């Protein structure tokens, strides 16, 4: 055996000796890599229905940690000032400026489209993986030529999904939500990751609704991280001011 082969063998043995990551560890690492103390951004949401009709919305958003978020629509006119706030996936509210009213988003309403998009209110509340699903299965795969972990997840309500994670950078690349029959109902793609202050934030999140044949793309602009957003911003009275 020559010197190079020995070196490779030694490295191989050394690598094999490292403990493999568990699914939970991978999820935790994903959160670590993609989280920031807080985020502010404007966002453009483009909704394309099955007949290729396009609608556009613009929003301002503020997030603190992974679970607190406030989003305010700026356009179109019929949504202007409407503000969505979440402090967890069980606690969501919507402010309707025409009525001067803050309303709790109830369970079934949480599955409805956010601003007419393919993202439900619950999807928006969990956009930073705030929920802590359990990992049922883990495997390795390739996604468009990128080596990934494929995690099969199940949340506290029994809903299943799949998550593809870039092995090299621990970035979430794709999520598939599964129906009760195990078939995918929605597919979410994360792309255009920006590295800001040691956090990797996807500037593009695209949702495909496989049952309706529609899609929604959310593009973040003017992204700012760690600006000192306070916890007490996330109150009903501040929803009137908006994000």
């Amino acid at each position, binding site marked *: 055996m020559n010197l190079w082969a020995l070196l490779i063998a030694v490295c191989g043995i050394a690598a094999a000796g490292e403990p493999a990551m568990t699914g939970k560890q991978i999820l935790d690492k994903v959160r670590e890599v993609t989280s920031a103390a807080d985020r502010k951004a404007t966002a453009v949401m483009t909704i394309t*229905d*099955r*007949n290729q*009709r396009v*609608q556009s919305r613009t929003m301002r958003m503020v997030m603190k940690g992974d679970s607190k978020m406030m989003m305010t629509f700026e356009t*179109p*006119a*019929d949504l*202007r000032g409407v503000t969505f706030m979440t*402090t967890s996936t*069980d*606690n969501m509210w919507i402010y309707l400026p025409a*009525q*001067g*009213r*803050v*309303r*709790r*988003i*109830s*369970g*079934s*309403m*949480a*599955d*409805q*489209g956010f601003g*007419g998009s393919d993202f439900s209110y619950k999807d928006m509340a969990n956009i930073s993986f705030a929920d802590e699903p359990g990992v049922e299965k883990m495997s390795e795969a390739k996604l468009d030529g990128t080596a990934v972990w494929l995690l099969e997840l199940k949340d506290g309500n029994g809903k299943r999904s799949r998550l593809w994670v870039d092995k090299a950078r621990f970035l979430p690349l794709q999520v598939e939500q599964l129906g009760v029959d195990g078939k995918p109902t929605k597919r979410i793609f994360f792309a255009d990751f920006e590295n800001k202050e040691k956090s990797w934030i996807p500037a593009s999140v695209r949702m495909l609704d496989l049952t309706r044949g*529609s899609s929604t793309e959310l593009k973040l602009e003017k992204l700012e991280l760690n600006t000192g957003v306070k*916890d*007490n911003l*996330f*109150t*009903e*009275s*501040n929803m*009137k*001011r908006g994000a």
Partner: protein
Amino acid sequence: MTALLLVGLLAGQFEADLQTRMHLRLNALDSAAVTWFETRPSLVFKPMSNEKVTARIGVELRADGFPGLTSVSQLSQPGALEPVSVLLGETYVRVYDALPGLNLTLGRQLVHWGTADAVNPTDNLVTPDYSDPLTWDARRPVWMAHAEYAPASILGVELAAKPVFEPAMSVPKRWFWIENLPTSEALRQSLVQQLVGQGLDTATARQVASRYTITASEDFQLPKNRLKDMTYGGRVKTHFSVLDLSASVLRGYDFLPDAEPVTVLDTHALTLDFTLRGRYARRTVVGGDAAANVSGIGLWTEAAYSMYDDSLFEDEVSVIGGADYTVAGFYLNAQYLHGQFPLALVQTEDEPAKDFVLGAVERKLAGERVLVRAGGAVDVKHGSFALLPLVRWMPGSGLELDLGGLVFNGKAGSPFEPMNGNDEVFVGARYRF
């Protein structure tokens, strides 16, 4: 107005809303008529809107499609030919974090009080707007000082003070009106019946009654504008797990007057004076509400105990509870109300109907561009109902086109009975930009 428009345009903060709607009453072919035709454009300017301060000026026009002429001499008066009312919308200055966690708003504003969906028993603060029968749960902004203190997301305190009483606006007489003031002839007939009851034969009773001088008048008074007549109160809000809770106290006036008939019969002077006293009752409302979601079902309840200053009015409890749920694309909303229902403006029985079931079913179709809704209310005591079916088409952003109806079925004594015959079909359009 021009200056406001310029300020708004320069500031780049300008919103507009244009609504128009026409109702057709088709209950009998030979008397089918247009009973409602109104256009309501509104403009909102925000001369200032930043993290610290928001200023807003709202103006609403109400253009009646029917000429308001009562004489030939008015033909040269544009105001009579094309009646337009100008109303002030929300117009206020709001300061955020005046102190940490404290937001202050001064001016004309809408404040939603209570968590229930359509009827809020705890709300004695913001004036209802009954001027449009289709939006019977609408409210008008009122002059108010309003403070909200939220030191943390789980606790909020609100205080409100409204210095001037603002009564509710009623539907136009053309659409619906019950004449509370009887005619002299009706009073005379009533006197005849009274005399017959006292033992006179009908002919003699009529002869006696004909000698009476009969007057009918109205004695209507608004609450005074003394500081002690102000409306004021407060609310504490919190949320615990998936539950939102609040408790409130408000002291103010009812928004509709109570009409009390007073008849004075002088058998010596042979006069009968009928006076309809219209007064607004003052009360203290203590209440609370809760909202939650349980197993995907949204639940809420709101209850209030009203204590009237005047012993002529009985203290009363009002409660509403409701739930909503979405299944197979259908949105379902059901509520039970024990209390006053806004469309039940006229109650003719001594024991008025107080229990109502409200419900709505909605479904969005065609990629959420079409909304189909069936909603209504049932008077439990009489089994009478009012229905509001609606089809709304939203062909583009900000544009809504409506086709709908109003259906009333009121049995004798029901609050919906006076509206029998008001069945209508309506078409409307709304554009926001």
